[in-house]
C-alpha cells in the first residue's frame, strides 16, 4: 500500500486522550520504533502532495558549481544584507530568508568572511521575526564565528541552521513558510546561474540552469495549495510562467547499472543524461527570474 502521509490536524477524541496520556509518560529510549497510536487522517502537509514528498536541491550546490566554473566573486548579484529591515510581511520575510541562505552559501564559498557575517545576521534577523526559534541561536552564531576561515565547517553550520528552521516550521504547521524559504533559495541560485552564464558562458552552468526544470515543477506542486492566498497567487502565476519556458527544455536519460562498494558504503550512479536548452530559452529564463526576484527583494 502506498503511504498516506499524515499530519495530526484532525481532531480525534480517542487519539487525543491517548496522546495526552502518553505525552506525559516520557519516551522509551530502548524502543526500536517510536510507537504511535493509529491515526485516521487524510490531510497532507506541504511536502506531502498525493502521498509524495518533494525535495529541492540546496542552493549551495549551485554556488559551488559557479565557483568551480571560474566565475569571479560578484557582490552585485546578491541581495544586500542591509535590506533585511525592508521586509515587513511574513511572505517577504520567508522568501528573503531563503534568498539570504543562498547568498550566505555563495559568500562563504568565495571566502568572503566579513560578508558572511553580514548575511548570517540578516538571516538570523528574518528567522527571529518569523518566530523560528533555535535555528540561528547564539550558540550557532558563535560556532559560525569561531569557524570563520574554515569554509567547510561554515557551510555545514549553514546547512544545519536551515534544516533546524525547516524542522521548526514543519513542527508548527507552518509548511507554507517552509515552502517559501525553499522557493527563495531556489530562485536565488537560479539567479546566480543565469547571471554568471551571461558574463561567462559555461557548459556546466548552462546544464545546471536546464536542470532546474524538475525542481521548479516540485516547487509549484508544493506551493499551489496556497494559491488562493493573495500574496501567493501572483508568485505562483509567475512560477507557472517560468515553467512554461522550461517546458521546451529537453532531457534524455539512459540507465546504466550502478556499481556498489559495500565496504565504503558507496554506490556510484553511472546512468547518463543529456539536456537540450537553447540560448533563447536561457535568455527567457534569465529575464523571468530577474523579474520575479526583483519583486521579492524590492
Amino acid at each position, binding site marked *: *500500500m*502506498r*503511504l498516506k502521509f*499524515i499530519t*495530526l*490536524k484532525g*481532531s480525534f*477524541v480517542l487519539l*487525543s*486522550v491517548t*496522546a*495526552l496520556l502518553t*505525552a506525559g509518560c516520557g519516551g522509551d529510549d530502548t*524502543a*526500536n*520504533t*517510536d*510507537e*504511535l497510536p*493509529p491515526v485516521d487522517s487524510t490531510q497532507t502537509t506541504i511536502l*506531502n502532495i498525493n502521498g*509524495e*514528498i*518533494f*525535495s529541492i*536541491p*540546496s542552493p*549551495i550546490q549551485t554556488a559551488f*558549481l559557479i565557483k568551480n566554473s571560474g566565475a569571479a566573486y560578484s557582490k552585485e548579484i546578491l541581495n544586500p544584507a542591509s535590506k533585511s529591515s525592508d521586509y515587513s510581511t511574513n511572505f517577504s520575510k520567508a522568501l528573503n530568508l531563503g534568498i539570504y541562505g543562498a547568498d550566505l552559501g555563495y559568500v562563504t564559498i568565495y571566502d568572503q568572511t566579513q560578508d558572511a557575517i553580514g548575511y548570517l545576521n540578516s538571516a538570523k534577523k528574518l528567522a527571529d521575526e518569523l518566530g523560528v526559534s533555535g535555528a540561528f541561536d547564539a550558540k550557532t552564531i558563535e560556532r559560525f564565528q569561531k569557524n570563520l576561515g574554515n569554509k*567547510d565547517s561554515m557551510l*555545514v553550520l*549553514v*546547512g*544545519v541552521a*536551515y*534544516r533546524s528552521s*525547516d*524542522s521548526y516550521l*514543519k*513542527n*508548527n504547521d507552518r509548511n507554507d513558510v517552509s515552502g517559501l524559504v*525553499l522557493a527563495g*533559495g531556489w530562485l536565488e541560485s537560479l539567479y546566480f546561474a543565469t547571471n554568471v552564464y551571461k558574463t561567462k558562458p559555461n557548459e*556546466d552552468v548552462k*546544464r*545546471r540552469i536546464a536542470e532546474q526544470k*524538475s*525542481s521548479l515543477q516540485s516547487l509549484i506542486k508544493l506551493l499551489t495549495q496556497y494559491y488562493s492566498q493573495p500574496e501567493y497567487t501572483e508568485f505562483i502565476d509567475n512560477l507557472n510562467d517560468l515553467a512554461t519556458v522550461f517546458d521546451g527544455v529537453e532531457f534524455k*536519460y539512459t*540507465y546504466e547499472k*550502478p556499481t556498489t562498494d559495500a565496504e*565504503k*558504503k*558507496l*554506490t*556510484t*550512479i553511472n*546512468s*547518463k*543524461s543529456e539536456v537540450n536548452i537553447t540560448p533563447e530559452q536561457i535568455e527567457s529564463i534569465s529575464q523571468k527570474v530577474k523579474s520575479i526576484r526583483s519583486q521579492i527583494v524590492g
Partner: protein
Amino acid sequence: MKKGLLKLAFVLLGFIAVNSASAQIADTVANACARHLGNQFISDGQQYRALLMNADETAEFHTTLYGGTIYRVAACSGLSDGNLVFSVYDSEHNLLFTNSEFKNAPYWDFKINNTLDCTIEARLDGAQAGSGRAVVLIGFKQAK
C-alpha cells in the same frame, strides 16, 4: 452547551498535545539520524519525514541529484539503526540501490556522475512491529 464547550476544549487540548508529542518524536529521530551526516556532508537544509503505520506503507521522496556530487542519504525510524528500509529508483523506476541488501544500513553514499531525478522509497522493516516516524536526511559534498 457547557458540555459541548468542555468537549471542544478537551479536543483542542488533545490536538495540541498530539502535535507537540509528534514534533518531539520527529525531532528526536531526526537528531539521532543527523549524526550519520557527520561533519563532512552539508545538509540540504530540509528534513523529510512521514508517519508509517505499518510495513506495507511506503513513503516516497522525490529529488534531483546533481552530477559531480557525492550525496549521503541517512534514513531512520526510532532511536536505533536498521529499522527503515530505503531504496533509490531512477525516473524509469530502475532500482539503483536498496539498503535491505546491506543489513538496513542507516546511511549510504552515492557518487553521481550525471544529474538524475530519482525517488527514495522508505518503509519500515517488516520484522519490526508497529508504526514509526520515518526521517530521511540528505547531505552532499563535492566529488573530488
